[in-house]
């Protein structure tokens, strides 16, 4: 059991960091092994924001191997040199935690596949997100713990999706935490609640097409699956509709891009989702109490039906 939540403001910006924190904290009983945020902030759109990690959180409850912090420093140095080799310029650098970094990068090429492959060829380095608006922040602990650790409560933006995880099929670590970046597409992220039963078949097929998997978490498949469909020319909505046939199992998932937010529910409707929709705000979550954290007044909500796909624009 995991919890997912998302919201999109249409025609305005808001404090999405704080709002999503409230929604995910309301779902913490669905799992607090790890929590992740995909926040689409207000930026000037000139530079890429790269969130990446050079190690794992090895705190209490983690299934990761303890490493010396000096290893993180070595990896960071190699990342910096690789960026230089790729022709990317680091405009701003933040190191929130020894293993977690945020770079603003001036990089003028649109294809991020080669870029990502080179960065991730450095052992122990994983790009959590890459985009001109998207920032994926994920770590062990509940929503409040992660929000406080990364000071997310003041982030202003248009939309966000998040995930409160109870680890069932893979480890308690950052690499298995949601959201997943839609590698190698700029500003695409995915969160998922459910189980995929044809994970390995799909994974092998996608790996043969050159797509990469960083974890053994079945949810990562959704991000990669949709990214591959988009690579083949499908729109986000087309890719999501295709996933209802291509993915087997029970699932409800959200996908976000720079200017849109979508949801899909499997044909058995076995995983919960409650949805609120108005002209200026769409909020959704595994349980109504998530929506109540941002809209405490009486509102009209409903459960999307089986096999339903919806996409909203900002």
């Amino acid at each position, binding site marked *: 059991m995991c919890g997912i939540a998302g919201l999109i403001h249409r025609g305005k910006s808001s404090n999405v960091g704080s709002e999503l924190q409230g929604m995910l904290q309301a779902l913490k009983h669905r799992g607090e092994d790890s929590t992740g945020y995909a926040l689409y902030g207000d930026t000037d759109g000139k530079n890429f924001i790269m969130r990446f990690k050079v190690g794992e959180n090895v705190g209490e409850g983690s299934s990761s191997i303890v490493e010396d912090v000096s290893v993180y420093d070595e990896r960071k140095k190699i990342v910096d040199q690789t960026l230089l080799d790729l022709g990317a310029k680091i405009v701003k650098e933040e190191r929130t935690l020894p293993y977690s970094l945020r770079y603003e990068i001036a990089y003028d090429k649109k294809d991020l596949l080669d870029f990502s492959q080179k960065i991730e060829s450095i052992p122990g380095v994983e790009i959590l997100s890459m985009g001109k608006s998207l920032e994926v922040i994920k770590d062990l602990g509940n929503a409040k713990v992660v929000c406080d650790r990364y000071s997310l409560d003041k982030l202003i933006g248009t939309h966000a999706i998040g995930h409160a995880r109870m680890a069932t099929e893979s480890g308690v670590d950052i690499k298995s935490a949601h959201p997943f970046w839609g590698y190698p597409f700029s500003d695409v992220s995915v969160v998922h609640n459910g189980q995929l039963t044809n994970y390995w078949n799909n994974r092998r097929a996608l790996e043969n097409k050159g797509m990469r998997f960083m974890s053994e978490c079945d949810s990562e498949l959704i991000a990669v699956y949709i990214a591959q469909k988009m690579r083949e020319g499908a729109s986000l909505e087309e890719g999501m509709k295709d996933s209802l046939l291509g993915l087997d199992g029970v699932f409800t998932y959200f996908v976000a891009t720079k200017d849109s937010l979508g949801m899909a529910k499997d*044909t*058995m*409707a*076995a995983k919960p989702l*409650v949805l609120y929709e108005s002209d200026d705000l769409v909020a959704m979550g595994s349980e109504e109490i998530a*929506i*109540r954290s941002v809209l405490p007044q*009486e509102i009209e909500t409903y*459960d999307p039906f*089986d096999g339903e796909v919806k996409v909203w624009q900002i």
Partner: protein
Amino acid sequence: MANLKNVEKKTKAQAMGMHTEVLTGRTQQKFFNPDEAENFYYFGTYDVDFNKRTDLDVKDMTAAEANKEIDKLMSEGYGTIVIKNPQGKHSLGVGILNKLNLIFEGSLGYFGMGSCDGPIVRINGRVGWSCAENLMAGKVVIEKNAGSCFGAAIRGGDLICKGSVGARTGIDMKGGTIIIGGDAGAFTGFMMQRGRIIILGDVGINLGDSMYDGTIFVGGEIGSYGSDAVDAELTKSDQDWLKRKLKVAEIGEKFDVSKMKKIVAGKKLWNYDNLEPTEKKGAI
């Protein structure tokens, strides 16, 4: 091998060694002897006065605290309780075994009004998954939409949603009536065993999948039929019952019930008449 001819005081099953004990307890008839009625006590019930009314604000309460407070108010004789600010909390109003007028001014989360026996409930909002699961008697009316597994395994009573409901409505239901004013999702009536479901709107795929018995009435389009769900003739008696039920439920009173579809179990999946392997041996 058991001697099936010598079954004077034992049942056939006992003679075959399937049950060793002899049931010597009171029969149901004796158990409900009205002469002993004063000795009966239905745990968790109180004498309440419907005219005695109070409000309860549960905004800052947990579900357990709110439910205990409802119980305390019933023990004090309150027969009409208005719950303020439920705010989508889970498991509110569960296990009420009383006659009671209960009004929620807002929405409930999961498992609201579960395992109840007798209350009349009105929810002026929506409800999450598994509302009124195991309802035994009473009436629950939801003014807006409901989540999946609405009325799972109910045994009696009326469960009414004026909006639309999610998937698996009436799953495993064993009695009672579920009425939906809007649409219903996939697998409605999945494995239902008895009772009736009325849907005025459309219904999703696999309607009545693997239903054992019971009846489903649909006013709109059907996504697809589930395994062993078949059409049946809508009789005059059915139409009269539907009109009466919709009127009492304050929902779709003007709905043209003559155009509704009636779905029942084809009973091709039934194996009740087949002998168990041990019985087959005995029969030989």
